[in-house]
């Protein structure tokens, strides 16, 4: 596809959303909607501009993104080596699979009450929730990825003289990478929702807090603006960061996803 083709496809994608944007103020006026029920587009824009001018948007966004980044990076750093270790032996991985599945089912939101008790309200509790959401799913997927590497490939590497570390670096990690990336993507999906829930419950800064506190004052324009920011941020993280990496690992190596 050339440049014109890509621009055309982009325009086609955006057209329905543009229609919604045009319809919005028309419907608000036509039905004379109370701004305490649903805001007009101009009010949302004004609320957005104001939050940019007074810096509060960036403070909330920064807090949310910092929690996600710290929780996710920590979780990946711990989960991947652990998953590889657990996946190396078929017996061990079969034994641990039910445990990891149980905990990955609990990932995220279910940890909020106990996290807030253990760490108190704030950065620690929320980061812990995110860590949990990502950790178990990534560990499980890493284990799955390592244990589905065909024995023949491992044998081939061993017969070519691969030692323990070369095997890890050259065979196990790359082989499990597509699964790891898929795990990170799924885990982050849960973590992002967990983040919003945790910020509603357990903090005084962050995007979740921003929209929840606006509710107290019936400031729907702030809520809707916050929702758009939350959705747009997730689309950016997912489409620009996670999906390309996933596509690159899975498609370039011709590997099929197994989870």
């Amino acid at each position, binding site marked *: 596809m050339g440049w014109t083709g890509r621009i055309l496809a982009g325009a*086609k994608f955006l057209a329905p*959303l543009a229609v919604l944007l045009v319809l919005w103020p028309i419907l608000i006026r036509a039905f004379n909607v109370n701004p305490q029920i649903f805001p007009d587009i101009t009010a949302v824009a004004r609320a957005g501009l104001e939050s940019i001018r007074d810096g509060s948007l960036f403070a909330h966004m920064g807090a949310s993104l910092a929690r996600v980044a710290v929780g996710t990076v920590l979780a990946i750093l711990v989960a991947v080596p652990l998953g590889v270790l657990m996946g190396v032996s078929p017996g061990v991985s079969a034994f641990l699979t039910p445990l990891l599945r149980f905990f990955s089912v609990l990932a995220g939101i*279910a940890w909020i009450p106990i996290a807030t008790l253990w760490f108190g309200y704030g950065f620690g509790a929320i980061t812990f929730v995110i860590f949990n959401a990502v950790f178990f799913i990534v560990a499980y997927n890493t284990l799955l990825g390592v244990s589905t590497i065909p024995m023949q490939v491992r044998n081939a590497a061993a017969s070519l003289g691969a030692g323990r570390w070369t095997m890890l670096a050259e065979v196990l990690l790359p082989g499990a990478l597509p699964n790891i990336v898929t795990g990170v993507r799924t885990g982050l999906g849960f973590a992002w929702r967990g983040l919003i829930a945790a910020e509603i419950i357990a903090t005084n800064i962050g995007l979740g807090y921003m929209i929840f506190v606006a509710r107290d004052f019936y400031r729907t324009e702030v*809520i809707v603006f916050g929702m758009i920011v939350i959705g747009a941020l997730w689309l950016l993280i997912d489409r620009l960061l996670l999906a390309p990496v996933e596509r690159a690992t899975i498609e370039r190596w011709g590997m099929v996803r197994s989870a």
Partner: protein
Amino acid sequence: MNPALQAWSLYARATKRWPALAALVPFIPVVALWWIVAAAGVFPRAFFPSPPDVVRSFADLVYKGILPEYLEDSVARLAVGAAAGMAIGIPLGLLVGLSRKAHAALWPPLLFFQAIGDIAWLPILLIWFGFGLATMTFVIVYTVLFPVVLNTVLGVRSVPVELHRAALSLGASKPRILWEVVLPGALPNIITGLRNGLGYGWRALIAAEMIVGTSGVGFLMFDARRAGSVVEIVLGMIVLGLLWYIVDAWVLAPIERATGQRWGLVTR
């Protein structure tokens, strides 16, 4: 042979005969470790209860009827949400998957509204509907809907064009092709969508119950948090894990075995 190996081979043989064991036995060392750490008093008991404390609180809450009632509330909300999500999601997915025009008009908004996660809707829903059932139902339906729609579209588009052609040249009309070819062809994807949707929906339910609830497992846990009762929080988490396990093992997995796996459309 050394005793550890002997025990291991015994375990391997036992799990082959009773596969349920393989899902249960791995929890024994975890519970044992938990018990030891709790008994050693590394953490204060109020912060870190031991397994018997949790069992006692389970018995207590069952005896008082609180746990069964809350569990019933949560499961009923989830079931209603899942049913409504599918009732809207599957037809919508078929429409978007089959019609070019519907796809061009609806696909971008679907992706956009999916990105605004369920829980971000809570504040405005609270303004619209107040603290109550309507808010929670909306959140769950919303959460279940998107994975079902998006996966149904994928499923519809994954049906090979040859199957459409075969049905046409055997004299099938459009509505019959929908029923006999498109729907069963998309079914494995629809079930995947339902699985994802329930996974998200169920977490959204817990969050909604914590934030707006007056009953349900999420409310139980959050109420316990207010009272500082770690035991009941841990109990709630275990109940949630078990609940999902039951939904997965007794509802979703059998459907998958009877459809996509049997037809050779999905490999296990």
